[in-house]
């Protein structure tokens, strides 16, 4: 059954990439524990609007945990305290009456703040553009069942492909590395026969692009795995490293 709780929010407010940010305090009263975290922010924003103040900017879209648009650091943890949960799927029943929540945007040199909790994650698109795909033109595909893939392999590839590109792994990492993000894509495609022909070039291109964009390096803190809302395993980083090592022998470049 639902309860009603009162919370104190300390929210990062920042007008633009150049602006200087600050934490501001808001009271969130009469919050139903059935609400999602973002619905709680909606309620706070409705109240701010009626008080003539500017609402808190935050990214969100599907509110089903799949689009990867939402995300903020809540009390130091990307997407908040629940394991395997995006911010939109975090429900207020996990908080206690009287709690204070510090809500901040993703922090990384590669993710400049756009406004308040909104950051620019264009760098993740650039990494995919560097090679995160199979090069197959529309119309040239062979019959789908001409290439069997062991069920176990397909499932493992699917585990990696579940990445929603939210950037929580980067926000969680002390080095702001994007290794889990890249590992997931490299691993997904390297596991499948469709992805093998380009595997060596792909892993090199994506890794170089990651370095160029200002992401840090992995030093095995495993924070990314702990905070990934899709619970993607760091074994995919291990596969990324193996693929990278192999590519030294096989890449044409």
């Amino acid at each position, binding site marked *: 059954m*639902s309860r009603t709780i009162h919370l104190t929010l300390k929210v990062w407010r920042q007008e*633009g990439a150049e602006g200087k940010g600050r934490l501001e305090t808001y009271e969130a009263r009469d919050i*139903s524990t*059935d*609400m*999602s975290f973002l*619905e709680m922010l*909606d*309620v706070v924003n*409705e109240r*701010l*609007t*009626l008080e*003539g*103040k*500017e*609402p808190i*900017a935050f*990214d969100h*879209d*599907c*509110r*089903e*945990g*799949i689009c*990867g*648009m939402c995300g903020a650091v809540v009390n130091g943890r990307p997407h908040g305290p629940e394991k395997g949960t995006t911010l939109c*799927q975090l*429900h207020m*029943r996990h908080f206690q009456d009287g709690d204070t929540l510090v809500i901040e945007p993703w922090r990384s040199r590669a993710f400049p703040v756009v*406004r308040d909790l909104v950051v*620019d994650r*264009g760098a993740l*698109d650039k990494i*995919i*553009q560097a*090679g995160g*795909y*199979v*090069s*197959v*033109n*529309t*119309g*040239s*595909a*062979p019959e*789908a069942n001409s*290439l*069997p*893939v*062991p*069920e176990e392999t397909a*499932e493992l590839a*699917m585990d990696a*492909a*579940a990445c929603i*590109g939210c950037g929580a792994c980067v926000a969680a990492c002390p080095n702001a590395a994007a290794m889990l993000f890249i590992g997931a894509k490299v691993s997904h495609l390297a596991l499948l026969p*469709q*992805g093998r022909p380009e595997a060596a070039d792909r892993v090199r291109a994506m890794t170089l692009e990651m370095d160029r964009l200002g992401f840090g390096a992995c030093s095995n803190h495993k924070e990314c795995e702990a905070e990934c809302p899709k619970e993607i395993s760091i074994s995919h980083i291990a596969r990324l490293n193996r693929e990278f090592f192999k590519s030294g022998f096989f890449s044409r470049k």
Partner: protein
Amino acid sequence: MTLNARVPDGPLAEKWDRHRFEMKLVNPANKRRFDIIVVGTGLAGGSASASLAELGYNVKAFCIQDSPRRAHSIAAQGGINAAKDYTNEGDSIWRLFYDTIKGGDFRSREANVYRLAQVSNHIIDQCTAQGVPFAREYGGLLANRSFGGVQVQRTFYARGQTGQQLLLGAYGAMSRQVKAGKVTVYPRRDMLDLVVMGGRARGIVVRNLVTGRIERHAAHAVVLATGGYANVYFLSTNAMSSNVSATYRAYRRGAPFANPCFTQIHPTCIPVHGDYQSKLTLMSESLRNDGRIWVPQTPGDQRPASQVPEEERDYYLERKYPAFGNLVPRDVASRNAKTVCDEGKGVGETGYAVYLDFADALRREGRESIERKYGNLFQMYERITGENPYETPMMIYPAVHYTMGGLWVDYNLMSTLPGLFVIGEANFSDHGANRLGASALMQGLADGYFILPVTIGGYLAEGGLAEVAVDDPAFEQAEEDAAARIKRLLDVGGRRTVDDFHRELGRIMWEYCGMSRTDEGLTKARGLIQDLRAAFWQGVTVPGSAPSFNQSLEKAGRVADFLEFAELMVLDAVSRCESCGCHFNEAYQTEEGEARRDDEKCRHVAAWEWAGDGREPILTLEPLEFENVELKQRSYK
């Protein structure tokens, strides 16, 4: 206005081949001279952008989100249909065609639907080659499952995340073309208007959502892949930013809007739980393969599910439709849920929910098998409701999910406005009055990968497209109009928030233009919408300024368009004097309470044309000819 569907002559199965042969082609070397704007990067827009760029066209792709990978197609769970017949059940292109036409209650064009079924198999090949990790059998070949409204297993799936995987495939293909320099992506852009020059669509004006600046973009053709308008109901399963503005603005520039009242109510969603609720969450229809839907037989029965003995439960779908049982089409399943809840048999805190029970399936197959099929859905349910569906039955209720109506297009997917192409959910073409499960992904990708890239070439090859520049007066005018509208929104300075108006609009639409409609209710709704619109322009408050990142302003513009568009939906619903598919007017039903079509009077597409502010839109009918299927009363018994 005349509506020429441009359906090619000849036998149904040969039309698409013949059409492709008869269309003019653009020489491969000349394709680079053409610029194409694609608005929206979901399955339709993403696949179109990639495929057009592969052909050599220069593509400018626009999306609202911060990345093209986040379009709402990503949330589709269940699967994608194709006529592969890997299961040896007697499936065929013809059967997929027939099921889709029948599922749509005979309100779609035969030729379009047949073509959809024809290209369905290529989609599976294409996506598999891209590395989409579809579910597989132990032998390594692709697995299939069944979905509502059909009796063969033709649905391909990737766990409960099929939309995500297909979209990431298209996004990958598109990203490859970004690297190749053939696609330029413009993220965080909101389309504010369509620019028409010399009677042709030649560009768009968009608002850069980060800077607030209005930008102009010209092209030789404009493709709208902007999805559906289910958010007119405020609560729907659509993503928060899904809106009607792009298609509605095109409508105001002369593109007819077809069948706007055809909106699908999905039977298996998590019930509403409070006023603050911002959206509804769908539970894939695939759950109906193994879940059994029931309510207590006695109205007002407050006992928990576990204490209601078997003989006091009403498995109403299995009872009424023994052949299809829990797998009846969505409209039938939704309406029946509403009926039992209206009879007082609903469950849960509000009484607006029915059980979806997996106890039998868990006993039969074991937890591991169920977990493999639906694990992430069960998790999602538990996360939202705090209840464990392995132990207590799920509670579900219908919610608005998809809109079959959309901009009118001909066989080439082009509007009556030359140069304006509309694909995916944004057009009206393939699903008639009701869409079958796993058909939306199929249509979006059919349009984007295989149909549009061919037909747009036919248009461009016709020639007669002068070069245009963004300093043309038509662009100037469109930008001025858009800026004036933004200023007007900011200047109202009222006391009610945008969401508050949107919520009220949603209540009106759900009550009077939802699962069950009456002429009186619709007429009343029209008045209520007009009043609400007037109140909005006098009483809305939009904080912040125009030249900045301003999410309240974004929402305000979209809700302002919904407030106009809602009236068009109601008008369309009143003018359709029959029940068909999802459009259920209580005055037209069979003795058993099923939708009763009127094929004499209503075998048509209703296309509405903008006539100016304050004037009644003009209705033009496109008669639907059925030469290959026999029109029948749908029966799922």
